[in-house]
């Protein structure tokens, strides 16, 4: 298996800052040893570690505090190729994705039951009544029609009700709950600008403010520390793109003319892929980036060094390089 970051080198070379730092010995970055192919498949079956989402019994965000977050030793690449017939969701590398996965798992179990009943009924009826001699000559009785309504309503309440409540709990606790990143002092903010066909990311640098000389800009190379909320605001320069982190259950359109936002939290260190899911032109399929989840220390060291280089390279007259915006609070 080819080393994972090789695909990014062309675009990453454009404006990338601080590829490998003395401070972290290159571990976890581009020079990291890639032993992902040997990594056991850790993908949980949907439903792992969670029963039906209940929302109420959960801590506010449903997230795992950084200390207890499950981590994998740095240097492994969790999104290594899988066996040919592994047909599970992409591995979950976030602290919250297991809730969606569990809900999907439930939805598929319900689906399987409904399919089995309906298909079994159909096949049995065709087999049992094929060319039968005695035929009911009515369009159903009051009772049989009541059965139809009752069965449909019952299936609807159980299946759709589960999806609705579970989905709603996840939306309230994670997807639309921007209180969590807003109130957490450790939150990392990233501004992403989607282009045909690459992801340009901007970090505020150590001063915490966007639009200053120490802003760090990377191409197709997102870096975040493990175990803290990452708050992404998203725009597009040209056409509609779709920002997706399949391993973090994140998907959001990048639309010219508006700032969309989302947030996530990585559960462990490693390297994962960023993909575009909206058709954005001929090279749409090449709009691939990498997301490096680093230890807090190596992230801080990287940001420090990259910010230093950014200040050195800062050109007051290059207004095009300062495409960022004042962070928009919700």
């Amino acid at each position, binding site marked *: 298996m080819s080393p994972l970051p090789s695909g990014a080198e062309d675009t990453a070379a454009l404006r990338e800052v601080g590829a490998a730092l003395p401070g972290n010995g290159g571990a976890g970055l581009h020079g990291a040893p890639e032993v992902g192919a040997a990594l056991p498949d850790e993908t949980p079956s949907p439903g792992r570690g969670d029963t039906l989402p209940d929302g109420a019994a959960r801590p506010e965000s449903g997230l795992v505090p950084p200390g207890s977050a499950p981590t994998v030793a740095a240097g492994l690449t969790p999104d290594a190729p899988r066996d040919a017939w592994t*047909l599970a969701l992409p591995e979950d590398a976030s602290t919250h994705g297991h809730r969606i996965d569990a809900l999907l798992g439930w939805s598929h179990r319900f689906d399987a039951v409904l399919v089995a009943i309906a298909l079994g009924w159909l096949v049995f009826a065709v087999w049992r009544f094929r060319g039968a001699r005695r035929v009911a*000559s009515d369009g159903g009785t009051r009772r049989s029609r009541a059965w139809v309504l009752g069965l449909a309503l019952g299936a609807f309440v159980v299946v759709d009700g589960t999806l609705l409540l579970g989905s709603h709990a996840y*939306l309230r606790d994670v*997807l639309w709950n921007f209180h969590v990143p807003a109130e957490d002092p450790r939150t990392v903010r990233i501004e992403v600008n989607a282009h045909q066909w690459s992801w340009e990311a901007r970090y505020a640098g150590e001063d915490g403010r966007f639009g200053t000389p120490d802003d760090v800009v990377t191409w197709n190379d997102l870096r975040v520390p493990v175990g803290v909320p990452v708050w992404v605001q998203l725009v597009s320069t040209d056409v509609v793109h779709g920002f997706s982190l399949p391993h973090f259950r994140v998907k959001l359109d990048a639309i010219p003319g508006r700032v969309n936002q989302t947030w996530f939290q990585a559960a462990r260190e490693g390297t994962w892929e960023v993909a575009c899911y909206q058709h954005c032109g001929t090279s749409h399929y090449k709009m691939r980036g990498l997301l490096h989840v680093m230890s807090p220390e190596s992230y801080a060291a990287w940001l420090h060094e990259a910010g230093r280089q950014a200040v050195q390279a800062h050109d007051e007259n290059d207004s095009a390089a300062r495409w960022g915006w004042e962070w928009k609070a919700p």
Partner: protein
Amino acid sequence: MSLFSSDHKAVARRYLWSGLGFLLLGGVLALLIRWQWALPGQPVPGLAWALPESHGALTPPSYTAVFTMHGLIMIFFAVTPLLFGALGHFVLPLAIGARGLAFPRLSALGYQVYAVGGVLVLASFGVRLGPASAGWTAYPPLSTPAFTPGLGQTLVTVAVLCAAASAFLYGLNFVVTVVRCRAPGMTWGRLPLTVWGLFFASVLNVLFVPVLAAATALLLMDRLLGTQFFIAGAAAVGGGGDPVVYQHLFWLFGHPEVYILILPAWGMVGDFVAFFSRRPAHGYRLTAGAMGAVTALSGLVYAHHLFTSGMSPLLGRAFMVLTLIISLPAQVMFLNWLMTLWRGSVRLTSPMLAALGTMVVFGLGGITGLALGAVATDVPLHGTLWVVGHFHLTMGAASFLAVFAGLYFWFPKMYGRAMHEGLAKAHVLSSAVLFLGVFGGQLAAGYAGQLRRLYDPYQYTYLKHLLALNQWTTVFAFLLGAVQVLFVVNLVWTLRRGRAAEQNPWEVGTLEWTSALSPPPEGNFATVPVVLRGPHALSQPEVLERLGRDWIGQAEPLPEPASSEADDALGSVSTVGGAT
């Protein structure tokens, strides 16, 4: 039949042949997509003449054109014209006892507009910079000249406008015909379910196709006149247009379009399951009501296509609830079909096999859509092949099988010749099984995260392991293409030397079989039938007793018990020509 006849049956035949032609073209394009995912960048045998520079291999630009044109052709020029243009035009007036459509010249005009659109689509393959390539949804700004400059995109945009105009025309025509032109006694409660399905779908056409026309026309102005309706950005700088407005308009049409395509299929399934279980449709009113409920809700669920567009959480929540609610009437309808089979006398004719196949693929398609209706579970699946597999099962496989159910059912009436039952059964059965293979493979790949529309999915490490799965899916797809030969052979053979069809080969009571000749002359009926009963009067004890058969025409008087022996001699033939 002259080429300019405005008789509804002649128009139907024109739509049939054009629709089948575009179905073939769209199918070939689909196979090109599948080839690319199984053997990325490998030359396609026989394609070197079209793509000489790459020796016949799909390039990223040609691939984007291929999947764009596949979607567009299938929806606007193949499946919709086959369901409404061919089957709808042919059956609807006959089934309600009308002499024709309310506006015959309008339906002829509708076909001409559609044909112009079809010519533009074909022409777009020949222009510089190729045909449209912005996806069948044509989201701006990608579909504006800045990013898709070719003439092909403009031609295809006009073609979609033409298809929309013709869909509006026959939608309006069908609605007026059903409301105004029913035969005496053909009450709303006696309409065949097929007519209910076509009627509701036509209502949706009238309501929502203009929305598509508006979105497309504005896009065309952005392309040709330099307007900026869909170019950013109102939200950011308070001026200009907004690409998201297009998405709302498009899906406000696009989601009802799903029901436009599936409602006629549902109607046919309801009728055929009753006909070939030899008993009245279980819960006829419930089924018709469920179709009406789906129709009423269909425009209120569209924004689940925009769950990841960053729209307001309040909207997301509302559309999630509405989307999930629409599964309730669908379940009622499905259970009614199952109940109709129960305690019937099932005959596995080719239309019945196709209808059962429609039930299976539609059921699977509907169930796999549940996870897309809830916001949280939609997020991991959005934009993946799961979505593609889901809507191909419902809009693709189910509509396709319903078209062929209808075609095999009404072909003897259309052409007066009987198709070969064995070939027809083999065709629909193998198609249904292979559809499950193809779209099941897509569902699996999408669940594992494969994004749609990728020229080379294996650029992504996390998708590399899906190559084998995609190759198997491609094998099924090519087999699916190959078994269509069964239909072509059957069609050619039947038209050339097929035996004359019996008057009422399926032994059902609806008007087109019991009150009109095969094929019906212009004007349909010698005298307009007077309808006495519903469409599914099958296995009624008094009919069995007095006529000695298990069916009776909708307009056929039931003889008094005393004279039953004399009337026994009068078979179905005597009722033909309006012996009422």
